[in-house]
């Protein structure tokens, strides 16, 4: 074998090893972060931590009950707004592939997916906070719902695209009206794909802080009134992580671990449901 061929083969394997090395270096920071958060957070979490509200500066202890409850309410309301609109939007895009409105609508969904979350926060501030005269959980929910929409629409559209046309044609041939074909045949057939899109969208927004800064604002007490400011997990982490008090930092570490576990859990559920559906999300 000539030297040149040897050199080429050696270069090829050297670059292969280098690529593999680089690819696995990516994993290192994530593992670092996960381990660090788990180590810092695990000692802070106990029953007391989950059912109490934060103590004022200087007193140790306290919990994050207000943030947990607030997060659930804000995300729940956001999901109530985004799920029906998102699924119907996905159906619309799948049923009208050629029309001009569908083209613009698809483009706008793409744009919406790329809009920075802080911009959505500003817009929600002017749409809801200013007219209603104060920060409210509802405005936070609307901001998060706007962020959920593109993900739900996209995954619904992609799932429905995979269903065979014969399914729809068979239903029409039986004389079913359009809405029944969609709601009783098409959507139930694709329900697991649609659901995984919904779960993924919840996972994406569960950790969003920027849109809540000017909308839900935060609240040191337990609140269930969606027209008033409300605390949420990411907001609590942001506020306490940047504070100089050790007690508050401890709270933030515990809250980080809980947020992380919750987001990872949602992602794993999505993974398991999309495995059966070869949907690209």
């Amino acid at each position: 074998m000539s030297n040149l061929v040897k050199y080429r083969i050696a270069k090829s394997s050297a670059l292969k090893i280098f690529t593999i090395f680089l690819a696995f270096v990516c994993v290192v920071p994530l593992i670092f972060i996960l381990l660090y958060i788990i180590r810092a957070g695990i000692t802070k979490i106990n029953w007391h931590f989950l059912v109490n509200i934060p103590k004022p500066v200087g007193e140790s202890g306290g919990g994050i009950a207000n943030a947990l409850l607030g997060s659930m309410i804000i995300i729940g309301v956001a999901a109530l707004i985004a799920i029906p609109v998102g699924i119907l939007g996905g159906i619309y895009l799948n049923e009208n592939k050629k029309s001009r409105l569908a083209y613009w609508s698809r483009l706008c969904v793409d744009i919406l997916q790329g809009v920075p979350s802080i911009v959505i926060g500003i817009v929600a501030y002017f749409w809801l906070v200013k007219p209603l005269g104060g920060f409210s959980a509802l405005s936070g929910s609307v901001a998060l719902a706007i962020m959920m929409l593109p993900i739900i629409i996209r995954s619904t559209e992609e799932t429905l695209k995979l269903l065979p046309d014969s399914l729809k044609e068979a239903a029409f041939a039986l004389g079913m009206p359009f809405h029944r074909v969609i709601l009783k045949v098409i959507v139930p057939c694709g329900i697991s794909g649609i659901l995984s899109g919904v779960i993924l969208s919840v996972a994406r927004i569960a950790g969003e802080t920027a849109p809540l800064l000017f909308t839900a604002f935060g609240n040191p007490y337990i609140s269930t009134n969606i027209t008033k400011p409300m605390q949420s997990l990411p907001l609590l982490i942001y506020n306490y992580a940047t504070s100089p008090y050790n007690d508050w930092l401890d709270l933030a570490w515990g809250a980080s671990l809980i947020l992380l576990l919750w987001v990872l859990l949602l992602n794993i559920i999505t993974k398991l449901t999309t495995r059966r559906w070869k949907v690209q999300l």
Partner: protein
Amino acid sequence: MDAPVEKDMMTRSSEIPMRVINSAKASEVVNTIKRIKRSYRQIRTENVFKKTLVIIGLVMVILVFGILLTLVVESLPSIKALGLKYLWGKTWDPVQDVYGAFPFLLGTLLTSFLALIISIPFSFAVAVFLGEYYPKGWLSDFLKNTVELIAAVPSVIYGFWGLAVLVPIVRSFESKIGVEPVGVGIFSSSLILAVMIIPYAASLGRSMIQMVPSQLKEGAYSLGATRWEVIRSVIFPYTKSGLFAGVLLSLGRALGETMAVTMVIGNTSIIPKSIFAPGNTMASVIANQFTEADKPIYVSALIELGLVLFLVTVIINVIGKKIISRFTNE
């Protein structure tokens, strides 16, 4: 068109039973009429449903234009008062009513491009590994899922970790190389951002590389090319535009990323002197100062930043998506 026919049906339905009353066929006729009425009701529901779908489609368009309109209207006072000077003004001093966005534009560009340069080798390595070297198997499953998890971790957690772990490391690194050891700043934000944007270019690059037709690769192998030569002279040229789109989408992410950057960039409104100096990005300024802004012009200047951010990310994303859809349709 439906309405008169339907009305006709209804009047007839009230007449018919009277005429055929007591007849043996009465119940059958009534049933037929009921069925016809039901199908008219269904046609009506069908129309309502179709209209709802169109309205939802419209809502998407209205939403995006509403966002644009709101940003433009709310930033009008600042656009009118400051004009184009706003973009090139070098000082940002709300107390003196001087608003120049240049430090933030520079901060945004510096952090984003630095992050992009750091992350590209890694995300391309992941793309090549998953797309070409090991498309299947537990190892590639592991890498694929882990890289996707990077995108799943909330940005506020990256910021917190950066503040607690990365900033001290950067600080000691800075004191070693002889710059002012601040820790927080452009460099720390870029590092965090680089980690956060790896998955976007990587997952897009992977699917693009997997789409390279095997005849092309086999042709190159049959001419005696090594694995690397195939990657460099067949796969990269073929997927060039797709890889570029992935980089664009990563850039879009980096430009708009708020929380992680806000927490580690240091928040000073002066022009950063080096990449180790603290600074501010457009998103972090908004996050920090929006609730404090007390004067209308101050608020409006901040929203103009949001408008610039919105326009830039929209343009980047639309170009990226167009490239992808052209690539996948070919």
